[in-house]
C-alpha cells in the first residue's frame, strides 16, 4: 500500500468518558493525507477531546486511533513521542511557555529534538516567523503579544518541526475577521506547499468552509455527519445542517 493510500488519521470506534460524562461515543472516521478536515459542533461535544486523543495527551476508553497506519493507543511513552514528532498542535490559547521569549519558544523543540546547528535553527525560526508575520517580535515574551499575535506564534511553534499532520484547536476564536482569514490562509498555504494533513476544530463556519475539504459534525459525543460541505448540507441530522449552513 502506498503512503498516499494509507489514511493520515483513522478513528476506529473510539469512545471516551470523563467520570460519568460520556464525551465521545463510538466515533469512526478517516482523514486522507493532505486533506483539511474541519470538526464542527456545539461547545462541549468532544471536539477538542478528539484532538487531544489524536495527540495521545489522553487515552481513549475504547477503540483504536491510527496515525499514518500506526496504532497509537497501545504505544508506550517512547513510541508516543515518536508519533508526536509527526504532528503539530495549535492550542486554543496558543499555550506558549510564558517564561520563554517567542524565539526560545520556537527554538526549544528544534534544540531538543533535532541535531541542527544554531545557524540552521535561526534560519528555520526566521522563515516560520516570516510566514506568520512576526519576524520583528521574536525577542518578545508571550505576555506582551496580542491575542492574534499569540495565535500566530502558536501556529509558528506548531509548524517549526514541519509536521505531516497539523491539529488546530479553534485557530480563529477571539480574532477579528481579517486576522482569522490570515490564519486560514496560512493553513491553506501549509497544505498547498507541504501537503500537510490539517484537522481544525472550529466554530467559525465561514473559515471552515473556506479551508475545509471535508467536515465532521459532532453532537453530544456522536459523529452525526461526515463529508463534503454539500454532503453535510444534505444530512438527515438537523444540527449538522444548521451548523454547516450558519452564516
Amino acid at each position: 500500500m502506498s503512503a498516499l493510500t494509507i489514511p493520515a488519521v483513522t478513528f476506529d470506534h473510539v469512545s471516551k468518558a470523563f467520570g460519568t460524562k460520556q464525551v465521545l461515543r463510538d466515533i469512526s472516521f478517516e482523514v486522507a493525507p493532505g486533506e483539511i478536515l474541519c470538526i464542527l459542533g456545539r461547545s462541549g461535544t468532544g471536539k477538542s477531546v478528539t484532538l487531544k486523543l489524536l495527540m495521545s495527551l489522553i487515552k481513549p476508553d475504547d477503540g483504536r486511533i491510527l496515525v499514518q497506519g500506526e496504532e497509537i493507543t497501545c504505544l508506550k511513552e517512547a513510541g508516543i513521542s515518536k508519533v508526536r514528532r509527526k504532528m503539530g498542535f495549535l492550542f486554543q490559547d496558543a499555550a506558549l511557555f510564558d517564561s520563554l521569549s517567542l524565539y526560545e519558544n520556537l527554538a526549544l523543540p528544534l534544540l531538543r529534538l533535532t541535531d541542527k546547528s544554531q545557524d540552521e535553527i535561526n534560519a528555520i525560526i526566521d522563515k516560520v516567523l516570516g510566514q506568520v508575520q512576526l519576524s520583528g517580535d521574536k525577542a518578545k515574551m508571550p505576555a506582551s503579544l496580542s491575542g492574534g499575535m499569540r495565535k500566530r506564534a502558536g501556529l509558528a511553534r506548531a509548524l517549526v518541526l514541519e509536521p505531516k499532520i497539523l491539529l488546530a484547536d479553534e485557530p480563529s476564536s477571539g480574532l477579528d475577521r481579517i486576522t482569522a482569514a490570515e490564519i486560514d490562509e496560512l493553513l491553506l498555504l501549509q497544505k498547498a506547499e507541504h501537503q500537510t494533513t490539517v484537522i481544525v476544530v472550529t466554530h467559525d463556519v465561514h473559515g471552515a468552509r473556506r479551508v475545509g475539504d471535508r467536515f465532521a459534525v459532532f453532537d453530544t459525543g456522536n459523529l452525526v455527519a461526515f463529508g463534503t460541505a454539500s454532503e453535510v448540507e444534505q444530512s438527515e441530522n438537523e444540527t449538522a445542517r444548521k451548523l454547516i449552513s450558519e452564516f
Partner: protein
Amino acid sequence: MFKLIEFVGNVSAFAFRVVVDLFRPPFEGEQIMRQLAEIGYRSLPLVIASGFALGAVMTLHTRSMLVTFGASSMIPAVQAMAFFLEIGPLLAGLLLAGRVGSGIGAVLANMRASEQIDGIESLSIDSFKFLVVPRVVACVIALPLLTLFMDFSGLMGGCLSEFFSSGSSFYLYMTRAFSTMEWSNFIPPTLKTAVFGFIIGVVSAFFGYTTNEGAQGVGKAATYSVVVSSLFIILADVILIKFIFFVFPENAI
C-alpha cells in the same frame, strides 16, 4: 484516613519518579541553572534579611538572661550553636517552603490550566523531566547554600547587636562564637536541609503538576504546597535530628 494513605502513596510515587528521571537522559542542566537562579539567588534577600533580624533579636533576648548569670561572654557561642544546629536550617526550610513552594505550586498549576504542559508534551518533550525534575534538583542544591547564608547573617545580626550592647568587637564575637563549634555541629544540620529542599520541591511540584481544576486549582496548589511542605519539613526535622544524634552521638550530649 484512606485519603491520607492515598495521598502519601501518590507523593511517594511522584518522588520516586523524580529520582529515576534525574538519572535518565537528557539531563536538564540549563533548566536546573535557570531554576537555581529563581529559587536560590532570588531568595537570598529574604533569607539574609530574616537571618540578620532574627540574630539581632535573639541576641537581645539571650543577653538579658545570660547577664543575670554572669555568662554574657557565652552569648556568641549560644547564638552560633542555636543558629547552626536548628534555627538556621529550620527557618531556611520554612521560609523557602513559603516563597519557593508556593511559587512552584502556582506556576505548574497555571501551566497545567493554560495547557502549557500539554504544549510541552505535544512537542515530544517529557514535561515531567523538563519542569519537575529541575525544580526539585534546584531546591535540593539551593537549600543548604541558603542555610549557610541564613546562619552567617544570623551571626552578623548578633554581632552587630552585641557591638551596640557591649562594644564587643567583630573578631572577639566570632572567636567566641566558634570556640565550641565542631564540624559535626555544622555539617549534618546544614546537609539535612537538602532533604528539606527535596520535600519542598516534590510536594509543591506534586500539587502544581497534578492539579486539574483550572484557575481555581492554581490558588489551591499554592496554598497546599506551603502548608504540606511546612508540615513535612517539621516532621522530617524531628526524624533527621534523631538520625544525626544516632550517627554523631557526641552531638546528643
